[in-house]
């Protein structure tokens, strides 16, 4: 398996005694706990060690304030890309993907700018250092991304390729403008110490017009060299360049270029510029003389600038596949064996060699969080550039990186919401990762719980829905918010819990004589059927409402039904019968004879059900209640019979 021989990185934890103690750990959601301990677990004499628990995190970047913007804005681009039209064929699809790439890059640049502002405005040297480092890293990311865009997304063909690379170099490498400004704003530009440096760098970057402009300053200030300046100016003017939109073919371009090259050669050999070293060196550069170009190493600052300059003046119609040869030799020539290459160099080299996987691998190692590789890989995958065979960790590369990135987001108290969308677009493991992570979101507030719940409901994650509702219901019960607990258990479709809470409600009623959360109970609707106890609660409340509205016969019917249909638990019958008393005592006869017989039977069932032991323990209040009931029932029965007999009679 192609692997890098890189040692796993070592992290030292301060304060832990390495000589006599060991280290243990525990996983936490998003973090890891590490602490000093001693194995085997013994009850040796007291050996106190370091009493600290260290909380260690892998992706601390997730918590960076400025990077936050990077994460949230790129999230929008990512989601847009996933949803974009794939049917658009060929050119328009490519244009779309290039647009996406540019969007990502502008987000990086915006973040860089912000970070830069922070760096220069802060007084704290440590913070300044941190921010500056971050700016460097972001800058490197943009550099790499831009190159990848040119080579892999834009897939610039020969001719255009060099133009894009030139733009790339001009944008990213060395700050020419400040030096030029200084030179131009001085009294005698051509006498400025950096004058020729400025001309050189313009030439090195193929900015002919700018170079000619500066050269004219020399011409006007120094009449003796006017002749040479004119010739050089002419050569620069005549240099054939391929511009985007230009319709000439590559062959035509190559021909023109060959002629021009020969003309430059003639002037050089004739010794036209021999009296002015600067101009002679420029002419050599125009001829693509490697040594001449290398002399300007300090100005170019990087080997990839050197590469592009070389190509401009020796092989402007370079094909993408030819880049790799020039890239390697450029690196070698530039470094000249003095310094070794850095991670950035390897990444860029891999890109020039069109080794996409290598680029991603190297970036994964060099960068501290998964943001860059996850998004870049996803984009490249959309460009259909990644082979589908299984790579490093079982699932395909794109998905692996997205999973890692999104998992990191979940350790943040609000960025986790972005993570959800990333998981959504991971077809193999996205769902299960989401399930495992979303359970760990602390449900501090009801709003947060509802938010998490909505996400789960939208994705048919029934287990998680149940779990969350149960947790919230339990919390509510512990805080004595029965109404909230009830609605959560209804949402969880948890019958057992609903029964439990209904019992609590009923118990409360018995103790206080009134219901709490009437609104909720009144509007239960079909969810009342979730549990028998809940149904009873709902119906019982209905009874109270009917009574309150003086719809006595309806109330009476309901009350009776609650017992005869066994909706009411036996333990509650006494209360119900006691509730019947006021109805029995009304002036008007409410319970019919038949209903009264039913009530009597219920009462007898209730008292007969008690064992002898229980009968003996029944206190006076109970006995009195029973007697009062019997009396009331008997009286009602009498009145009912009379009433019914009378009606039928007439």
């Amino acid at each position: 398996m192609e692997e890098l021989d890189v040692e796993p990185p070592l992290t030292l934890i301060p304060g832990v005694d390495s000589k006599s103690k060991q280290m243990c750990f525990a996983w936490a959601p998003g973090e890891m706990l590490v602490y000093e301990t001693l194995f085997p677990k013994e009850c040796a004499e007291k050996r106190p060690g370091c009493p600290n628990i260290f909380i260690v995190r892998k992706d601390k970047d997730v918590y960076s304030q400025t990077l936050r913007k990077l994460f949230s804005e790129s999230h929008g681009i990512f989601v847009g890309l996933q949803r974009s039209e794939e049917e658009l064929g060929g050119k328009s699809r490519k244009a779309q993907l290039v647009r996406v790439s540019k969007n990502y890059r502008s987000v990086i640049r915006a973040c860089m700018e912000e970070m830069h502002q922070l760096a220069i405005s802060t007084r704290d040297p440590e913070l300044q250092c941190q921010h500056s480092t971050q700016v460097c890293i972001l800058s490197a990311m943009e550099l790499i991304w831009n190159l990848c865009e040119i080579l892999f997304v834009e897939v610039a063909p020969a001719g255009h390729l060099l133009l894009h690379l030139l733009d790339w170099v001009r944008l990213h490498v060395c700050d020419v403008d400040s030096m030029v400004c200084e030179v131009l704003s001085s009294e005698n530009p051509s006498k400025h110490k950096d004058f020729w440096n400025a001309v050189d760098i313009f030439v090195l970057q193929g900015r002919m017009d700018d170079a000619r402009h500066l050269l004219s300053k020399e011409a006007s200030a120094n009449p003796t060299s006017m002749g040479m300046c004119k010739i050089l100016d002419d050569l620069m003017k005549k240099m054939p360049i391929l511009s985007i939109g230009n319709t000439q073919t590559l062959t035509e371009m190559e021909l023109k270029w060959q002629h021009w090259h020969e003309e430059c050669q003639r002037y050089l050999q004739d010794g036209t510029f021999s009296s002015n070293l600067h101009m002679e060196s420029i002419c050599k550069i125009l001829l693509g003389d490697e040594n001449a170009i290398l002399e300007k190493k300090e100005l170019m600052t990087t080997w990839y600038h050197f590469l592009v300059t070389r190509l401009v003046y020796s092989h402007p119609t370079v094909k993408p596949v030819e880049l790799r040869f020039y890239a390697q030799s450029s690196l070698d020539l530039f470094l000249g064996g003095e310094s070794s290459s850095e991670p950035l160099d390897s990444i860029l080299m891999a890109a020039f060699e069109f080794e996409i996987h290598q680029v991603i691998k190297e970036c994964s190692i060099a960068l501290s969080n998964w943001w860059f590789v996850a998004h870049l890989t996803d984009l490249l995958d959309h460009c259909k550039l990644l082979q589908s065979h299984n790579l490093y960790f079982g699932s395909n590369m794109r998905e692996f990186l997205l999973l890692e990135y999104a998992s990191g987001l979940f350790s943040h108290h609000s960025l986790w919401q972005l993570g959800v969308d990333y998981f959504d677009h991971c077809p193999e493991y996205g769902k299960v990762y989401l399930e495992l992570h979303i359970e760990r979101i602390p449900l501090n507030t009801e709003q947060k719980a509802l938010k998490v719940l909505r996400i789960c409901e939208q994705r048919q994650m029934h287990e998680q829905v149940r779990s969350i509702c149960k947790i919230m219901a339990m919390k509510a019960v512990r805080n004595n918010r029965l109404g909230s607990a009830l609605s959560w258990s209804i949402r969880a479709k948890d019958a057992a819990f609903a029964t439990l809470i209904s019992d609590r409600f009923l118990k409360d009623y018995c103790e206080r004589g009134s219901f709490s959360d009437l609104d909720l109970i009144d509007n239960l609707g079909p969810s009342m059927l979730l549990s028998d106890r809940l149904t009873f609660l709902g119906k019982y409340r209905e009874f109270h409402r009917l009574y309150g509205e003086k719809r006595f016969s309806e109330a009476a019917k309901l009350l009776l039904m609650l017992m005869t249909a066994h909706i009411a638990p036996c333990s509650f019958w006494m209360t119900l019968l006691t509730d019947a008393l006021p109805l029995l005592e009304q002036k008007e006869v409410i319970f019919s004879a038949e209903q009264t017989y039913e009530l009597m039977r219920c009462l007898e069932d209730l008292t007969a059900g008690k064992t002898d032991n229980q009968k003996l323990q029944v206190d006076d209040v109970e006995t009195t209640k029973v007697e009062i009931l019997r009396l009331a029932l008997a009286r009602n029965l009498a009145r009912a019979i009379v009433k019914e007999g009378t009606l039928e009679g007439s």
Partner: protein
Amino acid sequence: MVSVINTVDTSHEDMIHDAQMDYYGTRLATCSSDRSVKIFDVRNGGQILIADLRGHEGPVWQVAWAHPMYGNILASCSYDRKVIVWKEENGTWEKTYEYTGHDSSVNSVCWAPHDYGLILACGSSDGAISLLSYTGDGQWEIKKISNAHTIGCNAVSWAPAVVPGSLIDQPSGQKPNYIKRFASGGCDNLIKIWKEEDAQWKEEQKLEAHSDWVRDVAWAPSIGLPTSTIASCSQDGRVFIWTCDDASGNSWSPKLLHKFIDVVWHVSWSITANILAVSGGDNKVTLWKESDGLWVCISDVNKGQGAVSAITEGQQNEQ
């Protein structure tokens, strides 16, 4: 980049034996040879001592948080042969249950998946494993597996809850038929898998590969694949990854993760089971990832004096 983001000073007066974050990463429970169990609120990088629980009469070996749906509940086990279940009631932490059914040190406690109810497995040096199930109203039902491991049981770990058959459309209110399983590791060099059948716990499998006491077992969380995975580590310095491909749980095959130079004490899976952390006598915590069938060390967390220095992440081929 791995970096220390917070340091919690527990003020324990003696060796710390376990530290566990709760489900949400908001609270930290620690236990120590000083016989106490402490709970800290560690939100937003802070540390506030919420409780200092006393009740054990010997070093406390492990703590375990129950699932939040049951409230704030913590179990602890100790050399004093006791298992104590602590609960937060009205803002204060109190002992809610004490189990004294073991004849020697209780080494490990582990809560079952919340789907099964509130069930705690305890492994003891007396060789037995107890299962405590909460039945309501402060009552706990006890089931004991005597002689689970000769000489002693060092670790217990539950299998993730998986419902046999279809997970869709379980009629509400009806409890699905879970097949409950857990793994235990003992001084008989074995890892055993236990299954509940007809309300009894039976030994389903014996996994043999270690040549010395098994110190820890960890059953990996499920990521939806039909395979089951268990990690085990032992006095013999080896860490094995056991996998079983079929649902019937019959054929487990071990793969050696690594042979360490010293005893390996603790193994544990990350939430999504993609990283295994290993702690051993070589004074390091190493993190491992599976890569195309091979296990690869991805990070080394070492201890030592001096500044924290972390190099960026890398991969190394298994030798």
